[in-house]
């Protein structure tokens, strides 16, 4: 069975890039979200194996989403994918339960490797 | 200040932020406004006009170009008109602008604040607003003709308006 991924980013182009990379790496992209609140709702609905989460989003941002997701599922595997690399924000994200961080603009191979480390492919 | 002559020998002057420009029947003033207000006063009998490009609602006693603030622009416009022999009574006002071009989280909805401040200052000066095109989220290119007091407003994706 494929590993299941939720992609949360307000940028359609980023969601597209991550989706293409993930599909070619054997993930099933089960859903997308374009703001923080939508990310929480979709997580609850879909129970993915992992989430890629942008920080700067309209309406409700990535930290809001992270708190909401971790509150629902303390074992959630959330990979923050953001152009914002401020120490304070990243510390808050890790403290809130983010599993790892990839900076934008990202190398697709590096994103794939990081996702694989979060949720190894058991080949089933 | 940039003034050009159009093909019909009308002088067209661009009114930059904080500026006030006056003129007679062979003159047009132009301004591009977003959150700013282009305010034009016209004397219909004398065919003289004056336009201010107002940037902020209230000077709060701060120094600065008089055209920059709603509360200082209108008194200054009336002073300049007086120097040209245009009386303060019988004037009409037209205004355009006061848009909110992009959302920001601050309390300062500057477009709306500018619109209200200009309306208030005109009321205090006893000048009637004849027409206005304000608010929204689009920029406006405003052309004011001193010959007949007409104000033409062009905005992206909208039909041209004539006030």
């Amino acid at each position, binding site marked *: 069975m494929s590993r299941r991924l939720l992609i949360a980013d*307000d*940028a*359609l*182009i*980023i969601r*597209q890039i991550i989706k293409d990379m993930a599909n070619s790496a054997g993930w099933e992209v089960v859903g997308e979200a374009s703001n923080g609140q939508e990310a929480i709702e979709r997580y609850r609905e879909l129970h993915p194996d992992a989430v890629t989460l942008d920080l*700067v*989003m*309209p309406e409700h941002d990535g930290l809001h989403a992270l708190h909401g997701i971790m509150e629902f599922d303390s074992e959630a595997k959330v990979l923050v994918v*953001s*152009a*914002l*690399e*401020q*120490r*304070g*924000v990243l510390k808050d994200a890790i403290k809130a339960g983010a599993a790892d961080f990839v900076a*934008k*603009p990202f*190398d697709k191979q590096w994103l794939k490797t990081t996702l694989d480390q979060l949720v190894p492919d058991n080949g089933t | *200040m*940039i003034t050009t002559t159009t093909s019909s020998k009308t002088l067209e002057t*661009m009114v*930059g*932020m*904080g*500026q006030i420009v006056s003129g007679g029947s062979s003159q047009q003033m132009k301004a*591009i*406004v*977003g*959150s*700013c207000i282009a305010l034009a006063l016209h004397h219909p009998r004398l065919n003289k006009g004056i336009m201010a*490009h107002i*940037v*902020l609602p209230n000077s709060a006693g*701060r120094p*600065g*170009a008089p055209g*920059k603030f709603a509360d200082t622009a209108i008194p200054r416009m009336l002073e300049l008109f007086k120097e040209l022999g245009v009386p303060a009574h019988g004037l009409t006002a037209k205004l355009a602008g006061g*848009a*909110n*071009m*992009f*959302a*920001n*989280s*601050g309390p*300062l909805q*500057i*477009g709306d604040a500018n619109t209200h401040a200009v309306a208030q200052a005109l009321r205090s000066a006893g000048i009637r607003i004849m027409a206005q095109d304000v608010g929204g989220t*689009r*920029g*406006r*290119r405003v052309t004011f003709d001193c010959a007949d007091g007409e104000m033409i407003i062009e905005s*992206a994706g909208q039909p041209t308006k004539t006030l």
Partner: protein
Amino acid sequence: MIEIDTDHVKALAGLQELFASATHDASAAMCRWTDGIITVTLDEVRQVPLEEVGTELAVGDEMLTMVVMTLDGGLGGSMILMFDELNGRQLAASLLGQAVGTAPAWSELERSALMETGNILGCAYVNALTRLIGTDLHPSAPHFIQDFGISVLQQALMTQAVVSDSLLLCEIGFHRQGKRLDWRVVFVPTPELQESLQRSLHAAP
């Protein structure tokens, strides 16, 4: 006759150095985003009289395609990335790996490509300035706007215009393989952010 205020000149020179350093980081990010094609350089940090902003930046009368990001909170500002229609479409096409769009309305994907460019560039500056001043800055999500350039700039200039008739602007240029592109970024810091940047310049290392 303009009297030269030496303190002011020094302050501008300091900000120039600071933004040049931040631009170096922004250029690296743009280069990665565009697969090595586009780089960024600092043109100038300068003071422009309020009434001359449109003419000085040569954005008076044209419709432009813009991406706007704001910095929210006490240390604020706006960054406006500006293109004419053709240059904007070309960038979107190159990021999407497709032909240049010709439909009158931009597709959601084209808009997204430009907005994400603004996001990456804006966050690169935010990251660099945060390291320099030691305080987190809070960028907004980008907005895509097609309108008269000066009408968008007006709102960005408001907080500076409240306290001054002369506005501080930071202008940034773009290059493709050494050739200058007709895109621009204008960064407009609020007076509070300017002060914070000046303090960081004078702080002991």
